[in-house]
């Protein structure tokens, strides 16, 4: 039984296609993050799961029950919004029990739930306050509390941290993680922040233009991006994509960047399909953090590149190098001194590379 299953879901607003044939499954207790740039349809998808938007095609199942035409209140879900959406005229207590009252829950049960949740979230001192008298973090807690008291099957979070300042955001992120560890409830979480996605999710679905690009564990998303969009979107700075061609000679496959004269052996790379690789136009992807200043593995590949630009950001520095007229970025500890406009010896970690078809932009 899947806690949540989405089947061939399509949605359009007028002539604009927002979601195209989305298929998604979540197991009990998972934390799924929908990640993507703004306008990719992730919030619309969440609203559809909640029942706040109608569906043009496809179905949504919760616990194998088709809820596509079921009212939001009957879907056994709870949602936390970006603006918290606390009812301004009600105090914290009334905010938290509003849903239970609508569901005609008994008075004792309401009191019991309220006490449990408000203690758990440490808002039991704030019950008589109005939302306008709370700080950002407290509002966030109350919003989560309002969702918790209903004991839903699925929690939906719509960018819940983006209204908080940077420091508080990191704190609340940890609290949400703890919350999930303790409660083990299924969560669907929408964000455009990759750090949030990586640190919270047990699964991440990366979306762009209404299509899921990759739905995988955070490790696989980072290490084995399924196409150039994912490779580019995840990581800061993003993965270097060097344009060039593959060559196959006597079983050995190597990569040559356009305009360069040396070959990078890619024999350790796990190709999905080993046929027709000779002369294939590809992108060679290597992350800035996988370019080293000192050789650390036997298989590291040595190149000599000219440093063009240095960006110092405290604990590390981001250097821009010239690789046959293509810019590539590398990340080093800021203790390393590299002279600009000079050739520097660098080492590519060949166990951490990705190759993408230049035409389809898919991983090969």
């Amino acid at each position: 039984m899947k806690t949540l299953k989405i089947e061939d879901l399509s949605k359009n607003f007028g002539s604009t296609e927002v979601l195209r044939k989305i298929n998604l499954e979540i197991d009990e207790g998972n934390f799924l993050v929908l990640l993507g740039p703004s306008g990719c349809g992730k919030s619309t998808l969440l609203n559809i799961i909640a029942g706040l938007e109608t569906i043009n095609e496809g179905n949504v199942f919760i616990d194998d029950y088709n809820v596509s035409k079921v009212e939001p209140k009957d879907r056994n879900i709870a949602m936390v919004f970006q603006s918290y959406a606390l009812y301004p005229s009600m105090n914290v207590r009334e905010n938290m029990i509003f849903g239970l009252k609508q569901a005609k829950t008994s008075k004792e049960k309401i009191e019991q739930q309220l006490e449990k949740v408000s203690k758990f979230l440490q808002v039991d001192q704030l019950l008589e306050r109005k939302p306008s008298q709370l700080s950002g973090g407290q509002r966030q807690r109350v919003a989560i509390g309002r969702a918790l008291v209903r004991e839903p099957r699925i929690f939906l979070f719509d960018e819940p941290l983006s209204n908080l300042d940077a420091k508080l955001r990191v704190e609340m992120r940890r609290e949400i993680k703890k919350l999930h560890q303790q409660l083990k409830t299924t969560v669907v979480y929408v964000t455009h922040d990759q750090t949030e996605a990586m640190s919270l999710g047990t699964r991440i679905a990366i979306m762009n233009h209404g299509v899921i690009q990759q739905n995988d564990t955070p490790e696989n998303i980072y290490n084995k991006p399924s196409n150039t969009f994912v490779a580019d979107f995840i990581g800061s700075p993003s993965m270097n994509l060097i344009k060039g061609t593959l060559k196959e000679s006597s079983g050995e496959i190597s990569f040559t960047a356009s305009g360069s004269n040396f070959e990078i052996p890619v024999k350790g790379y796990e190709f999905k399909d080993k046929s027709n690789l000779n002369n294939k136009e590809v992108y060679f992807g290597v992350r800035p953090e996988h370019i080293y200043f000192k050789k650390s593995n036997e298989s590291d590949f040595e190149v000599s590149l000219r440093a063009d630009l240095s960006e110092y950001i405290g604990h590390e520095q981001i250097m821009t190098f010239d690789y046959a007229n293509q810019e590539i970025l590398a990340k080093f500890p800021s203790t390393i001194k590299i002279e600009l406009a000079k050739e520097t010896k660098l080492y590519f970690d060949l166990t951490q590379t990705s190759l993408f078809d230049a035409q389809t932009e898919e991983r090969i």
Partner: protein
Amino acid sequence: MQDNFKPSSYQRLEQKSKYTNMFLRWFLYFVLILFASYFIFPLYVMVVTSLKTMEEIRQGTLLSWPSGLNFDSWAVAWGGRGYGAGDTFLKPYFWNSIKMVVPAVFFSTFIGAMTGYVLTKWRFKGDSWVFLFLLFGCFIPFQAILLPMARTLGALGISNSIVGLVLVHTVYGIPFTTLFFRNYYVSVPTELVKAARIDGAGFFKIFFKILLPISAPIIVVTVIWQFTQIWNDFLFGSTFSFGEAAPIQVALNNMVLSSTSVKEYNVDMASAIIAGVPTLIVYVLAGKYFIRGLTSGAVKG
């Protein structure tokens, strides 16, 4: 450069700008007082004239102070002289106006709030067209709809009645009240409505429990606007009612224009003030909310 620095010249400049500032400030006050008296002057004339006897009015000048606080003309304006036929006074028409203005303000405000709520929080296909046509209602000259409205009231059997006027004012208030409430609710986050829907609240519950409690500023604005419009209306009142069903503005006109004998300026002035007092009271009571409501817009969650 440093050698040319002369503190004395700065002192002189400072002194000069001090005089200039002082002059400008006094000039500013002078202009403000001038404009204020320009506005207050008619009210002054009205009040002093209403307190004078006819004798004083004939002998004195427009601006002269009354000999004493003589409220006789106010009593005549409100309650008449007591001789039967042909004596027009404001009391019954004042109550007519109250009976017209209270329900008309209530219904137009309530319907406007509802419409604004639907147009912003329950969007439907073509809702922007509906709003556009409603806006149209704000710009239609009311003279253009007098005839069709008269026919409609006739067909409904409520012409020349307070109920008829309530209907007319409600209908023609809706474009304005809708505009007010729509613009207010647009800035209320729609996530509030979504949260309430997930919590299980329906259309009316969300309106009454979530939105209406945070609408106080815009309700005040709308009530003041509608009250002033309807209370001061003469066109609809004079067209759709006559005789005993007329509102106060029509009665005031009849009183002032139809007197056959000598013009009683003191009674006229007192009547005019009585007819204007309710709107003044509303402004005094709710005026500060009016400005706040007009400028503030939304409440942040």
